[in-house]
């Protein structure tokens, strides 16, 4: 198992390259599926932000743009740092993988912590929809809808972050055992695809939750 540059006996593949390409392709297919998972959320957003525009924008204006923007920057950086791990993996530089991996995971953690702070603020301001919802006025129903969407979307994205951080730590452990070589570093690549995808989803959620309708 530790040396992926040769095929084990029962492998369905002809060559290691054949196997590695299949793994990459498989991950992309899974990501296509994930895109439709978030796609359902985007549909909700598309419909409500148009048919209930006033209240929806009201909700957008109440999100914390500073934390949102900082978090976006963090995630961009994390994705970039992890890409360094991918490059290190291709060189067979296991220590480089660990270093960049831990950096990316740390940034991911920072994102989650900030997100938690933001959630805490929102809870204390009664922005979670319910009988004590903070926003009043004629459009507050749609604003509450916005916050339903906000909390679920950030929760789902956060769960993906948690999974991603777990995967990165798994990669770091493998790298510490010296698993990767120029001939074989596919797992680093595959996890990188997932991590960048989580980043990508945030690049779409950020404008939807914080920007569009703000001004």
């Amino acid at each position, binding site marked *: 198992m530790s040396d992926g540059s040769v095929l084990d006996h029962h492998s369905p593949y002809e060559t290691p390259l054949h196997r590695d*390409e299949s793994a*990459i*392709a498989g991950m*992309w*297919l899974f*990501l*296509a*599926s994930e*895109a*439709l998972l978030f*796609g*359902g959320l*985007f*549909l909700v957003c*598309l*419909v409500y932000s*148009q*048919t*209930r525009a*006033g*209240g929806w924008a009201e909700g957008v204006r109440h999100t914390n743009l500073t934390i949102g*923007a900082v978090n*976006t*920057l963090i995630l*961009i*950086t994390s*994705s*970039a740092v*992890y*890409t*360094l791990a991918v*490059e290190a993996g291709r060189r067979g530089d296991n220590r480089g993988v660990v270093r960049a991996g831990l950096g990316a995971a740390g940034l991911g953690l920072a994102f989650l912590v900030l997100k938690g702070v933001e959630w805490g603020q929102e809870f204390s301001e009664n922005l979670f*929809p*319910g*009988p004590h*919802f903070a926003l*009043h*006025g*004629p*459009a*507050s*129903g*749609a604003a*509450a809808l916005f916050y339903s969407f906000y909390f679920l979307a950030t929760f789902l994205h956060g769960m993906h972050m948690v999974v991603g951080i777990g995967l990165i730590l798994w990669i770091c452990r493998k790298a510490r055992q010296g698993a990767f070589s120029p001939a074989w570093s596919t797992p680093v690549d595959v996890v*990188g*695809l997932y991590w*960048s*995808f989580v*980043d*990508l989803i945030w*690049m*779409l959620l*950020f*404008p939807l939750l914080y*920007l*569009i*309708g*703000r*001004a």
Partner: protein
Amino acid sequence: MARIAACWGMLVLLLAAELAATWAGLGIAVCVVAVLMVLVIVLGFMQILRGPPLAIIFALGGLFWLTILLALGSLDSFTRTTVPVPGGALDGPALPDRAAVPKESR
């Protein structure tokens, strides 16, 4: 290394542009920038063009189906003639909590 730094720089610039567009109230511009950011990630970080051709096929397939979902899924809402419902207006205020279902039976 240089490629990654360049992509990172591009993303930061785009983020700045996005924020600027928000201040200017240009919703469309925000959307365009968001799409550009996604492209930078897909091409720069995920390096889709370096992967097997299947990766591109799968990604485009996902995109295509996403379009179907968004387009046909919103068709109804955008073409519906709404009949106003007394008491439950679309942009109306939030109603107080309804009689909650007993917790244990959820």
